[in-house]
């Protein structure tokens, strides 16, 4: 969870406990659980519901959904395995965890592809019924691993999920397919029992979801309870586990994914600016949900467009921005390529615009459902000519809201396109978010010019600049006398007329850069976690933030002279960053790419920073990062 202070004891949402247990309970500080099964097995739903129950129980939580690029590859194949990892704890946590304590697998393929994530001696709960000869073969097993002793290092719990589910539903008149679809609730019931989660939550959800299908409603509730009872009654499980509530800052909370966060941030910014919100996108994993989300918010007057392609998406947003609306376009890396030319047009016309890039594994089509942060240099440099613009990156799901809001605010204040970076793990990952009070959100002043009198008796000057921000005025279309023309050809400053003049071009290139540089005014001092001098500074941007916080906290607790700083604005870099770096013997830059921020840091500050780069479609591993930091420390 994010930056909240811990001031008071937890107060889990208290519904009466309807299910009673007589088994003993052990207390744990944190647990990482991973569910894995076929894409059709309801894994994401199961994971989400368990997360919600954990959050309501007052735990801090962080999730990592891990699904395949195929929609629903044939059942039982390795290609079709979908995973969901949840970290819940009685203390503040910042990552979904490297490895899991518990792995729940619905079939052999899920085991084969997820076994590597299970900790030594961890619990493996396996749907034993699915370990048929056919499924084993599809997963590449020659023998049944549940039987052949190969899992001896783990605690294996075999559960005949299919049979037990079937037993629970006998006589209800359901088809085999319908029965099959219920089995994830059996698993959910079992883990709810195991971790003492509040069952009411699931039952309420089932009530709502199957309101129009009473038979399925009853069936799912029955199966869920059967799962719970199974835990209570089977000898396999001897204890339950209790993870106490975490100390969390007081306030109202919800669970938030990064994609929800940016969508809400955009709406909030538009409302605070008093502007209409226009969002245009072309579907692309993992950004599509932002479009889906915003298309629901019609009461806020949000206009969304599913454009014919990414070029049309950004261009229509430019049209809307010219029309004096807060305009946003969102996509992932391949779409950013297509938008590049038009982003240059927005730079030239100095129109406010936010371009959201939910980064995924690249290059090219790459690994669409995996995470990566390798579009940074593209965001900064990926256009023809000198084409600078501010770039901001979110560090976590909850941070996405603030970054989205901030991106809009800066775009409007400086009359400039801004690129907002998140990534697949942030977009789909969830964490508790302390909901801000709407009235506490900062206002966003917009300098719309709606009256010809603004220019007195002089000519209309679309490129007349404001002193501090260098922003040009945003002339309100439809105003008599303010007619003007914008375009992508170089123009005279102030008048905005076409200019091929040599000195003016030099001046305009410098001015566009100066305007972006001026955004440093918006940046608070760079926070350093730990001392401001020491052996190693870990410098992060984007989603590795959580792993860095965790690793640095651990090492500091061991007395190491390690600190952590995080940059939210990547272009321009914070004005005090050079001074921060200067306090350390070594600088380590962990990135899920082959070294991008590090290039900027080295070029800007001439500091011999070192990279820690893992490009494997996964969040940075805390353990590996810790080792990398240790390597930088004096031995």
């Amino acid at each position, binding site marked *: 969870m994010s930056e909240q202070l811990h001031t008071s004891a937890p107060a889990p949402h208290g519904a009466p406990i309807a299910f009673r247990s007589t088994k003993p309970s052990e207390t744990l500080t944190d647990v990482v659980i991973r569910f894995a099964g076929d894409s059709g097995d309801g894994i994401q739903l199961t994971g989400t519901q368990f997360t919600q129950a954990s959050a309501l129980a007052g735990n801090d939580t962080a999730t990592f959904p891990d699904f395949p690029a195929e929609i629903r590859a044939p059942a039982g194949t390795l290609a079709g395995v979908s995973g969901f990892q949840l970290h819940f704890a009685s203390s503040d946590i910042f990552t979904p965890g490297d490895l899991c304590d518990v792995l729940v697998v619905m079939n052999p393929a899920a085991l084969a592809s997820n076994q590597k994530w299970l900790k030594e001696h961890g619990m493996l709960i396996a749907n034993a019924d699915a370990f048929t000869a056919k499924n084993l073969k599809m997963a590449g097993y020659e023998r049944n691993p549940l039987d052949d002793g190969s899992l001896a290092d783990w605690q294996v719990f075999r559960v005949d999920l299919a049979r037990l589910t079937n037993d629970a539903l006998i006589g209800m008149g359901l088809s085999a397919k319908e029965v099959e679809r219920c089995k994830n609730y059996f698993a959910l019931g079992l883990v709810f029992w195991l971790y003492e989660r509040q069952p009411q939550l699931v039952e309420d959800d089932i009530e709502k979801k199957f309101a129009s299908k009473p038979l399925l409603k009853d069936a799912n509730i029955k199966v869920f309870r059967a799962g719970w009872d199974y835990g209570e009654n089977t000898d396999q499980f001897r204890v339950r586990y209790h993870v106490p509530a975490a100390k969390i800052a007081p306030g109202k909370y919800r669970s938030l994914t990064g994609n929800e966060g940016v969508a809400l941030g955009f709406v909030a910014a538009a409302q605070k600016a008093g502007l209409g919100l226009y969002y245009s996108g072309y579907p692309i994993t993992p950004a599509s949900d932002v479009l889906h989300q915003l298309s629901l918010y019609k009461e806020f007057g949000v206009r969304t467009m599913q454009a014919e392609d990414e070029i*049309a998406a950004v261009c229509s947003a430019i049209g*809307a921005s010219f029309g004096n609306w807060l305009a946003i376009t969102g996509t992932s890396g391949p779409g950013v390529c297509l938008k590049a030319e038009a982003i*240059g047009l927005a730079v030239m016309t100095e129109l406010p615009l936010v371009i959201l890039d939910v980064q995924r594994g690249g290059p090219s089509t790459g690994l669409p459902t995996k995470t990566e942060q390798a579009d940074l240099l593209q965001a900064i440099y990926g256009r023809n000519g000198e084409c600078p613009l501010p770039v901001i990156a979110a560090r976590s799901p909850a941070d996405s809201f603030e970054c989205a809001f901030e991106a809009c605010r800066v775009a409007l204040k400086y009359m400039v396109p801004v690129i907002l970076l998140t990534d697949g793990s942030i977009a789909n990952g969830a964490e508790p978010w302390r909901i801000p009070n709407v009235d506490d959100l900062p206002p966003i002043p917009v300098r719309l010019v709606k009256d010809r009198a603004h220019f007195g008796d002089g000519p209309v000057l679309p490129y007349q600049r404001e002193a501090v921000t260098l922003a040009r005025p945003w002339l309100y279309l439809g105003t008599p006398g303010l*007619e003007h023309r914008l375009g992508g050809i170089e123009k005279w400053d102030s008048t905005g007329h076409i200019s091929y003049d040599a000195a003016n071009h030099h001046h305009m290139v410098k001015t566009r850069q100066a305007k972006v540089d001026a955004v440093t005014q918006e940046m608070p001092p760079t926070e350093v976690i730990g001392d401001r001098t020491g052996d190693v500074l870990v410098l992060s941007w984007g989603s590795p933030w959580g792993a860095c916080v965790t690793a640095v906290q651990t090492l500091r607790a061991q007395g190491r002279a390690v600190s952590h700083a995080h940059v939210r604005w990547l272009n321009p870099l914070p004005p005090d960053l050079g001074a921060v770096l200067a306090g350390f013997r070594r600088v380590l830059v962990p990135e899920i790419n082959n070294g991008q921020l590090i290039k900027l840091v080295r070029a800007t500050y001439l500091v011999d920073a070192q990279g820690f780069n893992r490009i494997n479609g996964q969040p940075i591993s805390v353990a590996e990062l810790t080792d990398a930091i240790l390597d930088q420390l004096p031995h």
Partner: protein
Amino acid sequence: MSTLAPETAPIAYKAKDFSSDQDVRWCPGCGDYSILANVQRALAKQGVPPHQIATVAGIGCSSRFPYYMATYGFHGIHGRAPAIATGLKVVRPDLQVWMATGDGDSLSIGGNHFIHLFRRNVDIKVLLFNNRIYGLTKGQYSPTSELGKKTKSSPFGTVETPFRAVSLAIGAEASFVARCIDVDAKGSADVFAAAAAHVGTAFVEILQNCNIFNDGAWEHLAAKENRSDHTLMLEHGKPMVFGAARDKGIKLVGLRPTVVKIGADGVTEADLWVHDAHDEDPTRTFLLSRMEWPEFPVPIGLFRAVTRPVYDQLVNAQVEAVQRTKKPDLQRLLDGSKTWTVA
């Protein structure tokens, strides 16, 4: 920058009220000059003040158009004017949006946005300056250049069958299609007036002469001496008569149009194909788009104007319908459906 047309002015404009203070930089003799004048005249007649109009363009000689108009203007990037105009129109239904484009801009690089504009039927008036060549890049062939045409990029002649802009628009579900000639002020006036009045995407193909790189491309239609015999002025509800002596007509034989002589073989005007610009079925419009000289006179004027769902209107209607029943509450939106409180 024009400061004309304050809201208190009477709604009576002159063509020059639509003329900006920017120097026009087309080549002397270019057909674009006549088009500019014809559009400015049509706008003056229409009576919508310059500040309530936006002109959007792509890139090309033709796409310099917005600079010369005293309206709000946007000179975009190559081929993307339809997308820019769509975003603008959706958020600013109060503005009348015109779009200027070339045969390269719209039919080559911009082809995708072009067809989607028609499909969505966004309320935008599209002026396609078809000179069958790339002007601004100095004379390469375009998607409307004749098969075999020799240009800088096709020194041995092109090997590409041209698009027929009107066929393509019809194939893309266009609700309004018309055609006029740069030098024909009268025909242009009628067509621009109809486009201005249409709600939905109004497509006007303008046959334009590029006297530098493709001089005389439309001479067989544009020249005074050819016009009445080589073109067919379409008039809704009227039989298709043409010729200087108005003695020729088009008859439909089965599904095939045929040129007939009125008076000969007992043919009278009553036998002729009667133009129906409001026919819901686009097949007959499509048929008109296939009529090319010298086999046929080339149809000029309003081909088709029908009413069908308009994208920007529907987008806004959908929002307004929700807004009538649901109040925006930002705090509730941020809260979402499941919250918990830590004291």
